[in-house]
């Protein structure tokens, strides 16, 4: 996984609340192998008309937002299904950071496992970013994970954000958490033995 440091990139403003993972990647594409490139399915039904042509009014389709690596949405982004395909679709489309007023819990966790930084900001800060990106789509936003701050282009003020220290560490180092867990092998084996003695009836035998 690519480590996440400081990102200065342009923004796609997405003025939508409750963008669930079904919108990010409709269920009928979940069967596709990742090698297909999941960017084809990102917002598949939202960004197309019924005849399959691209909707001009959908921000991701607009020329001024091409190449953006940061997506900024309203509350409850990524709620719903646990499908990690929703995150694969964002990652394969080149996004590195998602900013929203709140996130679906499983989605947030899936983001971090794929090198994508989920940043929760108050709605006032999000509105400011939307306005900036709509006024000047080429204006970069700087997201610094180390200092946990977001800064608008030409704005001396930074906005801080909270992130779980464990998630921060994994993202900054690009770490695989299975390796991290296996470093606790002895503790785990000891737990497993004593747990098995305490709760023998929890192991199914039917």
């Amino acid at each position: 996984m690519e480590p996440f440091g400081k990102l200065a990139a342009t923004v796609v403003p997405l003025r939508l609340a409750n963008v669930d993972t079904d919108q990010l990647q409709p269920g009928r594409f979940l069967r596709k192998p990742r090698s297909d490139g999941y960017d084809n399915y990102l917002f598949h039904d939202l960004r197309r008309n019924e005849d399959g042509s691209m909707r001009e009014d959908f921000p991701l389709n607009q020329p001024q937002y091409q190449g953006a690596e940061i997506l900024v949405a309203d509350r409850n982004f990524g709620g719903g299904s646990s499908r990690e395909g929703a995150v694969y679709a964002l990652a394969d489309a080149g996004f590195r950071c998602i900013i929203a007023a709140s996130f679906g819990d499983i989605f947030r966790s899936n983001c971090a496992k794929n090198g994508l930084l989920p940043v929760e900001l108050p709605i006032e800060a999000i509105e400011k970013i939307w306005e900036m990106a709509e006024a000047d789509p080429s204006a970069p936003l700087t997201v610094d994970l180390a200092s946990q701050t977001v800064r608008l282009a030409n704005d001396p003020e930074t906005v801080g954000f909270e992130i779980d220290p464990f998630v921060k560490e994994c993202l900054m180092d690009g770490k695989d958490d299975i390796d991290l867990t296996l470093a606790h092998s002895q503790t785990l084996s000891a737990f497993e033995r004593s747990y098995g003695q305490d709760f023998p009836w929890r192991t199914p035998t039917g």
Partner: protein
Amino acid sequence: MTEQLTLFEKIWRSHTVTARDDGQALLWIDRHLCHEGSFHAFEKLAMSGRKVRRPDLTFSIADHYVPTRNREAGPDEPEIATMIRLLDEHSRTNGIRQFGLGDPEQGIVHVVGPELGLTQPGIVLVCGDSHTSTHGAFGALAFGIGASEVSHVLATQTLWQKRPRTMRITVDGTLGKHVTAKDLILSVIAKIGADGAAGHVIEYAGAAIRGLSMEARMTVCNMSIEAGGRAGMIAPDETTIAWLKGRRYMPTGKDWDAAVAFWRSLKTDEGAVFDREVTLHADEIAPTVTWGTSPEHALPVTAAVPDPAGEANEGRRATFEKAVDYMGLTPGAPLDGLRVDRVFIGSCTNARIEDLRAAAAILKDRSTKVPTMIVPGSTMVKHQAEQEGLDRIFTGAGAEWLESGCSMCAATNGDMVPPGERCASTTNRNFRGRQGPGSRTHLMSPAMAAAAAVTGTITDVRKLAEG
């Protein structure tokens, strides 16, 4: 003085293998359920050359993609056939007990888990599906995970988790006649919002919850995820114990006695503190339906489609406008009487035996006016329904009676609502396109869906039930 703990805290503590100062805990997982969508995770595991640490605690069940018709012939789409075959291969290679296509115990993973007694009070149970929250009905800590986490659990039988906050939702009083668990949970979501419980584990408490059957408790916990919750749970009681007794994977003999003694102690201590408390009164809950594109867009069936113009908040107004437009509705029109094109009764929310009995009670000696699909939650539920003669009531009313699976809830197996059509559905999500591109979903209880099938419109079930 001993510490007062919530049910959640007791389970969390007893499963913590190791904890970090930053609040992350490595949790022991008692039960891991997989389905054919877990192929990304198995592939990741195979690529890293790792093995499944505890195949005896891992079970796999085909549900999302299985066909509901001509099952003997197998799936007709090659991609779907491949996914089901992959689950079979991954299960065999890793020594995992599988309930695949054609198995008499196959079904939706969240129906089959409890049915087989794989779900127990006090355990931690995970599955790569957000509706894993269902199993919390038994007093387990059960939550959905992503593919990377599935891979982590396969390799280590543990999961790193940040300790969630706790929330208690107390529902006082008694539910009215023909008002069900589905109406209760839709009312909760309407009240707190689709992200109202984000970052929290919910414990449901109060007289109305205690009075629910296990099937009804599963419906409530199932939709905790629609309120944004990490998990939902209900403390085990005599209802739980009676329901579990004798199930295939339940402990027996002295082990059963020890387990029951432990389960009886599993509850939130008097005086334990939750991060958040919400109270509802059961007698204020009416049969409830959704009108929009989020489960929080839920109203009593006696209400009308909201008028976005009446929304003072700009963002909320825009959201309502989009929802009303997508759903093809007229602001101010009564919900009762709104024409539907089809009905779907099924899903991990509402396809258990009690749900089918509730639908049958309405459909008995009546006819459906619109195409109606009834998909049992498991093959065992299907057989039980047939023994009780429910299938004959359904087919007699003109409904389709099909094989078990997720079917038209997630629309991944090819069962879909055609674009623009309006579906009365017992499922959990009314998202845009959830039941197929352009589909319009109204969530409701099985009895309400059956009433919609009979009248061809959204209907207050109390009118039909009262004769």
